[in-house]
């Protein structure tokens, strides 16, 4: 049976890709951020997961507001990045896992989640930056990735409780998959930040820290926020918390925190890193 063995939360901002491309990890600005990652990389290298289910949001590479899905699920064997407008060099393709992806699609649509199912999907920094953070030098080709893309751009967007419910359904789908696979779930983006308006630059450290605590031990508390609440408390792009909440929904068993780091600002955000171990309860 497939098993979810753990989960990771991480920032996914493009500035991280720039810092890594330019070897800035040890500079005073970036060191406190990158110093959080070795324990997570070590854990991943030790556990050797077969599959990463990665919750992210597209920032206008693949999806435009002509046809904006609330939830999109990738079911391909390969995903490509592309120029996101900044002329960043092309990076290697991401390996998919179409078989577990279709299993998830079959299960969760039947449970009443109205996915947009994608056999071809370009993936942006929201997905590639976390992979490169875990396997620097873009050495992520060996791990199979299932992208779960959540609308965090245009209101109406899924409410936190809906993202959590989707995660729970995905968790159940994984547990019902007959093949022996080790699965790790990534919740990416966040934490508090606001890019637009006179309020740009807003960060709420206190909220971020509380949010990391609650994510571990009482995630249902986070699902009580509406997206409007998140905007007020965590900034306009604080709604990216939906990806963390979706990830957390997948973890239906016992959760143990193995490692955390919080540092800000990187670019305009507070960056929270969590490594969680997950044990199935049978």
């Amino acid at each position, binding site marked *: 049976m497939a098993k979810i063995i753990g989960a990771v939360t991480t920032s996914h901002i493009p500035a991280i890709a720039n810092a890594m491309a330019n070897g800035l990890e040890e500079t005073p600005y970036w060191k406190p951020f990158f110093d959080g990652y070795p324990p997570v990389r070590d854990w991943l290298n030790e556990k050797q997961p077969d599959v990463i289910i990665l919750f992210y949001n597209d920032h206008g590479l693949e999806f435009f507001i002509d046809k904006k899905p609330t939830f999109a699920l990738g079911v391909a064997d390969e995903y490509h990045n592309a120029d996101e407008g900044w002329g960043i060099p092309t990076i290697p393709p991401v390996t998919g896992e179409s078989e577990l992806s279709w299993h998830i699609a079959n299960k969760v649509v039947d449970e009443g989640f109205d996915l947009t199912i994608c056999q071809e999907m370009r993936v942006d920094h929201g997905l590639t930056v976390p992979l490169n953070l875990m396997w620097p030098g873009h050495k992520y080709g060996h791990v199979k990735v299932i992208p779960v893309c959540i609308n965090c751009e245009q*209101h109406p967007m899924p409410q936190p409780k809906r993202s959590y419910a989707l995660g729970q359904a995905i968790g159940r789908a994984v547990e019902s998959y007959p093949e022996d696979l080790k699965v790790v779930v990534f919740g990416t983006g966040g934490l508090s930040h606001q890019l637009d308006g006179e309020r740009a630059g807003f960060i709420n450290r206190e909220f971020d820290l509380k949010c990391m605590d609650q994510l571990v031990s009482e995630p249902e508390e986070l699902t009580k926020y509406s997206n409007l609440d998140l905007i007020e408390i965590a900034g306009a792009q604080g709604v990216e918390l939906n990806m963390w909440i979706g990830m957390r929904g997948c973890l239906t068993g016992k959760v143990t925190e193995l490692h955390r780091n919080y540092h800000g600002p990187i670019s305009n955000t*507070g960056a929270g890193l969590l490594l969680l171990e997950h044990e199935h309860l049978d």
Partner: protein
Amino acid sequence: MTERYADREFPGTYLFDGAMAKKGYALNKMCYSFNEQQARDEFNADPEAYCNKYRLTDTQKKAIFDKDIIGLLREGGSIYYLAKYAGLLKLNMQDIGALQTGMSVDEFKDMLVKNARGEV
């Protein structure tokens, strides 16, 4: 008038909802095109002609030429696509933050540090 997603107001925040997505559709479509180098080149060669190709309104064009980010938000711009325009202008997110808040870039960065330390 297309209804707003919410009545709740957030000072200094432009909720990107149906009303804004409709108002800014052409503007965002143009900025979305900037994912492509060819589109960026075409814009740079003749910004006005490129804006006209996407049928931007005069107000939207003025905000584009003035690099008036707040103006673009008011005109229905989504920060995701405006970020592509910022990329074309070789501005990063702190530059954009400074433009929107009326601070210098250094002042804006200082504010980020204070916010992230919880010194607010």
